[in-house]
């Protein structure tokens, strides 16, 4: 994962490094070339000058020897040596590396030389003119150091510019990102993206606005669909229920028929429950339970327990409870009641006969545990219509409703299994 703006930065840095690396030897070669040609010219001038001066007077061999000695002592750059006739040469340029006599530190010096010969008194002499040249490794080092310094400057500049650009040009991008990250389909009806005069970002914002609006529409439709569908279903369910009630009243209903009628009642009440729950889910999602009260958790649980008393007794369940009587919750009373009822009825339904249920409140938590054999699939437990068990009663929505109510108030609901099922709500 790299930040978008760091990618070009990296590329720019690498590219400039490459270019600068190539530039170092090129610089060195160029400098060397200029240097050497300049020195060669200088040597040549010196040679011409020397030749002219030597020719302008008649020097004896001894004098020349003397001159050479004096030169050698004073100015080591020029020397004259006797040579054989046969060795007459063209002028030639050469380079030598010699140990530096004066500068032990430096070790070696490079000299650029010019060889020539001239004839004085029928004696052939060879003239050498040498000038110290900067060694190319030293040049290389100097250029490399300077280049490196410039490279560092470049990088600092890149980083600085990058920040500037990021802060300025990319501002609309980050604003858009911020708006998208904080956008909640369930709450926000529309998304407002900042105006920008950067073409690409404006295009992006327009596309995003269209996308989000489409999604919001679809979401609203889905929500109102659920609500409308449930409303529409209420009437036929009500009719079926009343028909069954009337059917039971008919004269001459045989036990077989009345058995049939009774067996239709169970799926019908399940249908009615699913429908009621769908409607409730839709309403919670549509924020139709806005008002909030200070509700006593204790009295809410006591009421629920009283309502479930028959079902608890019917299954011979042991219910242990330890309540923090002072615990108050700010929520819509009906929603809190629904959450508690759903958790309780779940526990009662899924506990084997003679099992036990424990209810605990305190520290801003409600914990419902009930005995069970094996853990449930925690990841699908709170999803709608997830088949966690093969029971035929549940609407498959009870825990989804618990989840929905909890998330409405930012409570967290968790399930765990340690020898028994544990559902906890942290308020």
């Amino acid at each position, binding site marked *: 994962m790299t930040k978008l703006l760091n990618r070009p930065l990296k590329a720019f840095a690498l590219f400039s490094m490459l270019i600068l690396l190539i530039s170092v030897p090129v610089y060195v070669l160029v400098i060397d070339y200029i240097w050497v040609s300049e020195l060669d010219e200088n040597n040549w001038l010196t040679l011409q000058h020397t030749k002219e001066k030597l020719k302008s007077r008649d020097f004896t061999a001894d004098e020349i020897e003397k001159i050479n000695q004096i030169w050698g002592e004073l100015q080591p750059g020029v020397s004259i040596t006797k040579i054989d006739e046969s060795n007459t040469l063209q002028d030639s340029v050469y380079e030598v590396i010699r140990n530096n006599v004066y500068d032990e530190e430096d070790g070696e010096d490079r000299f650029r030389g010019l060889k020539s010969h001239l004839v004085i008194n029928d004696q052939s002499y060879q003239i050498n003119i040498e000038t110290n040249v900067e060694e190319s490794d030293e040049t290389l080092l100097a250029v490399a150091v300077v280049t490196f310094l410039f490279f560092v400057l470049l990088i600092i500049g890149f980083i600085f510019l990058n920040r500037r650009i990021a802060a300025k040009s990319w501002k609309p991008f980050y604003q858009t990102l911020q708006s998208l990250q904080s956008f909640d389909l369930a709450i926000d009806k529309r998304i407002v993206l900042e105006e920008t005069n950067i073409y690409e970002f404006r295009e992006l914002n327009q596309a995003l606005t269209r996308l989000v609006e489409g999604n919001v529409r679809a979401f609203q439709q889905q929500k109102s669909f659920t609500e409308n569908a449930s409303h529409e279903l209420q009437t036929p369910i009500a*009719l079926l229920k*009343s028909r069954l009630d009337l059917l039971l009243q008919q004269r001459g209903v045989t*036990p077989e028929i009345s058995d049939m009628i009774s067996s239709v009642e169970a799926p019908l009440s399940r249908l009615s429950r699913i429908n009621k729950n769908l409607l409730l889910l839709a309403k919670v999602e549509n924020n139709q339970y806005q008002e909030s009260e200070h509700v006593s958790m204790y009295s809410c649980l006591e009421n629920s327990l009283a309502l479930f008393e*028959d079902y608890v007794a019917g299954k011979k369940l042991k219910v242990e409870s330890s309540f923090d009587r002072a615990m108050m919750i700010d929520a819509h009373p009906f929603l809190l009641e629904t959450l508690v009822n759903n958790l309780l009825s779940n526990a009662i339904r899924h506990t084997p006969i003679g099992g036990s249920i424990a209810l605990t409140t305190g520290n801003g938590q409600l914990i419902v545990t009930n005995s069970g054999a094996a853990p449930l699939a925690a990841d699908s437990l709170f999803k709608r219509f997830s088949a966690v068990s093969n029971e035929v009663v549940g609407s498959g929505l009870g825990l989804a409703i618990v989840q929905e109510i909890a998330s409405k108030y930012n409570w967290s609901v968790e399930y765990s299994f340690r020898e028994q099922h544990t559902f906890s709500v942290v308020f």
Partner: protein
Amino acid sequence: MKILIIEDEKELARDISQYLKNEQYMCELASDYQEAMDKVYAYEYDCILLDLMLPGGDGLSILKELKRLNKQEGVIIISAKNSTDDKVSGLKLGADDYLAKPFHLSELSARIYSLIRRRQFDSSNVIVQNELTIDTQSKTVTVHDNPVSLTKKEYDLLLFFIGNKNRVLSKGALAEHLSGDLADMFDNHDFVYAHVKNLKRKLKEGGYRDYLQTIYGTGYKWEQ
């Protein structure tokens, strides 16, 4: 007893009137706002069943009109919109009761019975069924002047039976009456059986004539 059923779902209205018919009830039907208004202006009823979602108008405005005319009818709202808001505003506007669809006809019948009884016998709170006397004020039951001590649930069931005389009541309907909305969270309503058994036993000990019949496989019936 005259009952006006204001309900746009004609089938349901017919079912309701058929269920109530064998009582001493006379039912009239109105399936839209205008018809309902016409009937409310023209006649007197003992009880009005009011659906809130009506073609042509809102059921709550009928309620307001009734109160404005100072009519004495008892009103039970029957609504598919099971919303607490509707319930609250309905009861605030002077409805006597609120029943959410889908409901058992037996539940509706019991509510109508208790509503009419409350309005009719304003002075007395006593129901007399042959040898059985129920004082709804003190919630006490006597058979042949022998007090019978009932639990709250047994007492509720007794009133439910009395409000549905000669009707077969399924276990599910009884469970729903006792636990309300919670009943459909469970598929096993055997606890009803235990309550009814106790009620029967206690009434028998008091010496009543076994009006409460068990209908095999289905439920119960109070025959009188």
